[in-house]
């Protein structure tokens, strides 16, 4: 478990280097990736399904990325791209290809659906958490402005 968290951290840092994110932000990107993987693994541990776990992990990515982007005044993309790499269903995608090549089409299609649903859970997790985070921030700033006006 500890080894895997380190692996997820290093993986995010390395993917950040591949996409040329600024060197000073590599540590943040790795932390987002490690945290996302930890949330996913813990959800699996407590009996969540594969899709549920990936959804929880990508919600963590979206919230962390938006918070860091606001704090450091950098585009949120920088933290999202390396962050979701440990969650990518590479193993499922590969197993789909393997089944298809071996002619086990039924198994292949069911594995393909699992891959697509996992990928969709990741995409919508990031989508939903970014949207809700922004709504929340907008609500707070508007309330502050309203109170300032009243005073």
């Amino acid at each position, binding site marked *: 478990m500890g080894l895997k968290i380190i692996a997820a951290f290093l993986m995010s840092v*390395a993917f950040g280097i591949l996409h040329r994110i600024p060197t000073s932000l590599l540590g943040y990107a790795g932390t987002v990736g490690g945290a996302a993987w930890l949330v996913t693994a813990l959800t699996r541990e407590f009996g969540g399904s594969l899709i549920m776990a990936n959804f929880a992990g990508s919600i963590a990515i979206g919230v962390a990325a938006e918070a860091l982007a606001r704090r450091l005044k950098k585009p949120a993309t920088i933290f999202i791209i390396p962050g979701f*790499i440990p969650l990518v269903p590479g193993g499922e995608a590969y197993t789909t290809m393997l089944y298809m090549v071996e002619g086990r089409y039924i198994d292949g299609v069911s594995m393909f659906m699992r891959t697509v649903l996992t990928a969709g859970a990741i995409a919508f997790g990031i989508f939903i958490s*970014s949207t809700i985070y922004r709504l929340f921030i907008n609500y707070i700033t508007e309330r502050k402005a309203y109170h300032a006006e009243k005073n």
Partner: protein
Amino acid sequence: MTPVEKLLLNEIINLAVLAGEVLLKNGAETYRVEETMVHIARACGAVKVESFVIPTGVFLTVSDEQGHSVTTMRRVRDRTINLDRITKVNELSRRLVDNRIDYPDALAVLKRIARERTGFSLGPSVIASGIVGSTTAVLYNAGSYEMVAAFLAAAIVRYIAHIVSRLHGVQFTFEFLGGMVAALTGVLLAGVIPQLGRDAVIIGGIMPLVPGIAITNAIRDVMAGDLLSGLSRGLEAALTSVAVAMGVVLILATHAW
């Protein structure tokens, strides 16, 4: 704002459209490109600014108080991925809006950002790619043999990317070749060393090919309401994945036969 107001429309549009071009070339989201161009043009003294961006081109119209307007467009052909440049242009536009930099300096800085080589050279990125591969193998419960083999596969994939990108080839060639090379490395190494698990090596090898930018930008474009860009980037991500998968499938099918 006094020295700024003497700027000609042509000068404003040159700066703003160059910023948009640099952003789009290096993989920024559509709304970021549109908003940055509007912010920069406004900061330079334009009264009315309209921008329209699709993944392959930039359009910008700038008007002054008298109602004169200038429109320009740039076609963006070879797109790369360089988040460092996006961060720098973002920073520049913030400084320009806050009046912390004037027009000639901003133009000079922007031209330097567009020209300079940033990020890491070939050696570090090959090693980084290898690390992505070997850590993927760790996440899929592989042993130390597979880790080393996956490092090798992913590093070779990155080296192939370097060669293909110099040829300015057709889109999706590199992903297809990368998938083939990753599968070939896995199959060959598993043939030479019998106790090596083939699957973890291939999964590690294809991991650096995940279209991270296309997926993330597709999500964020759809979120921002840029449906045209969101759809085309989603399609780009899907086609990239299909290209990788076909590369792997061809090698596996050949091996099985």
